């Protein structure tokens, strides 16, 4: 009986683990640019480049590398352009900063507009 329960639990867990790794794999595929295509990720492409890269990434995952290690490897080989999500660093700071500066200036203007008119 214990054995059966153990097997069932094992099956459930392993199934879960497979789908989780599958999910991670797809997540990485979707975030890696197919550099020979126009604006597509390797997930959305069947070019040789995309297929090779997909194989490479799934191999690296099997070898136990994590997401970040894989991105680092890809970036060192192809440049930062290859990942779709800009990594937060000094030169991508403007990307996050500019909209928020606009947000702050806008709030200030609206506030002033309301405050001034009331007085």
């Amino acid at each position, binding site marked *: 009986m214990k054995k059966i329960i153990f097997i069932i639990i094992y099956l459930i867990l392993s199934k879960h683990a497979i789908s989780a790794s599958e999910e991670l794999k797809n997540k990485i595929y979707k*975030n890696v*640019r197919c550099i020979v295509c*126009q*604006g*597509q*990720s390797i997930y*959305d492409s*069947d070019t*040789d480049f995309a*297929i090779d890269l997909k194989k490479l990434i799934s191999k690296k995952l099997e070898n136990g590398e994590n997401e970040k290690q894989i991105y680092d490897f890809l970036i060192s080989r192809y*440049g*930062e*352009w*290859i*990942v*779709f*999500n*800009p990594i937060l660093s000094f*030169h*991508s700071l*403007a*990307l*996050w900063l*500019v*909209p928020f500066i*606009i*947000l702050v200036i*806008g*709030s200030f*203007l*609206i506030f002033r*507009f*309301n405050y001034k*008119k*009331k007085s």
Partner: protein
Amino acid sequence: MLFGYIGNLALFLSLIFNVFLIFSSIKIIKNNSLVNLKKINFLNNSVFYLLLISFLILIYCFTTSDFSNVAVYKNSHTEKPLIYKISGAWGNHEGSMVLFILILSFFSFIFFRSKVSEQLRFYTIFFQAILISIFLIFLIFTSNPFDQIDPKPLQGLGLNPILQDPLLAIHPPFLYFGYVGFSLVFSFTLAGLVTNSFDKSWSQYANFWIILPWSLLTIGIGLGSFWAYYELGWGGYWFWDPVENASLMPWLSATALIHSNIVTLKKDKLHSWTALLAIFTFIMSLLGTFLVRSGILNSVHAFANDPYRGVYILSMILLITFFSLAIFIIKNPKKALNQEHFFLQKDNFILINNYFLIFFLSVVLVGTVYPIILDAVSGRSISVGPVYYHTILAPFLFIFLFFMSHGPLLSWNKQDKFLQLKNIKIFLPISVVTLLIIIFWFFDQKDITLILGLLFSIYLIISVIFDLISQKALKLNFGRLTSHLGFGILIFSIFVNAYLSKEINTSMKVGDEIKIDEFTIKFSSINKNKKDNYEEVFGNFLVSNKDEKVELSPSIRKYNQPAQITSEVSIKSNLIADYYFAINLSEFEKDKIMVRFYFKPLMFWIWFSIILIALGGFYQSLRFKNEQKI
């Protein structure tokens, strides 16, 4: 050959007439003799007709496959169906620029017949003529559509197969009517500024000229998105690709403009802001043109190899921006009267609407332009993908929707806290109950972003319905209600679609049947088909889940000119979801083909809501037109 010369001549003549128009206008301004506009009218008409002639000749060159013309040679082929020969005329850089200028001139042409005061009309045509000249010089000297090759090639290079599509034949004209339509708003604004008549009556006329191109642009963006959905074959309809962003930016800016112009019209305030937005909207259109037309998007390096076009457009934009802003600063429109102002008042909420729209615009603008600048400056190329936009936009979208639900229900002149509180007490419970029903009955997803997205879009839809029921002036507000309802449905559908789409990627051979999740896919047969410009292999599939059974026949096409393989998707659509199927040749398993199946919920509603949004705009512009006898 002969026709090419005539076309070229027409282009040159239109430039000469146009320059002539500018000089006679300057003379009129100098002598202050704004009495007889007959000459201006004649020149203005001539420019339009000449451009029309050259455009028709270009189409003629394409339909008769006159390969002595470089543009025809590069983009056409004798074995192409007639419709694509015609649409090929604007499916390339040169031809699309001719269309661009023709539309610029078309707006001048019809504007001259409007009932706006003579002075405003004169100055608007003047500024518009300057724009036309700038673009004509660009066209004639950097991308002439009538360049000749000698000896004449026997056959053309063909049009990229993914552009051989009926939708893509009409997508650019819509987009251009939108983009370029804002040029008139721009010229009209400058005219209003220099004549010191940027006031209520200005915005009354401007209403029509803003909303019409906005509606056309909405349709244009929708068509582009629809094309990407069924032609690219990856089940997506918006990729945050720079080309798509280029069309979204003027749309966002124009949406803000529509709203701020209402305040200028109703309350005679926000003049400066409305003027600034009007200028900015056209600059966004120009930026979009630059991004798409300069080749800079493919890579900064490709741009650097052939920089003439790009550099010209870029300096053109800078010039136009500089001078229009200079006029704006010198002639800054009058300050608002001191009126009573409350927080819970319609004009304040329109300001909030503008605040969010400008924020959304800045996100899209930075995400699109920053990587290009970074690459040009430091040589580092980074990508900005969907996750950036989603992360940064989503939370603000929710607040935006909330304000959008209440703004239209506020009064222009007084504030009524209790009424709004009462409204919240009605909307909130209804939306929460609706949301709970949807979540528990239809799907098992507990993602917080999804729940908030659905909640606020339902909230908006309910507020619009409530507004519609209690509406006393339906005719007046029908356009706004339609567009806002459309927007609510759009956001709702986008969220459901984003979180509930499913996809299956696998490889199959004829006779296979597989079962993944709740879907069973059966590959029943293949058949072949041959057309003039391509051969096609169809795969016939049967897809079923517990409540639906659909037959799908995607195909692979092998085009002959140019030799290229494309994958054509097969979509079965109903009100609940799309069943979307695509096949590809497999590199590794010769006897199998790669299949991709997508289950895309509420796609119909995404397209439908875009049409609703545009319809609201068309209704509104017609109403303005009838009211003001434009």
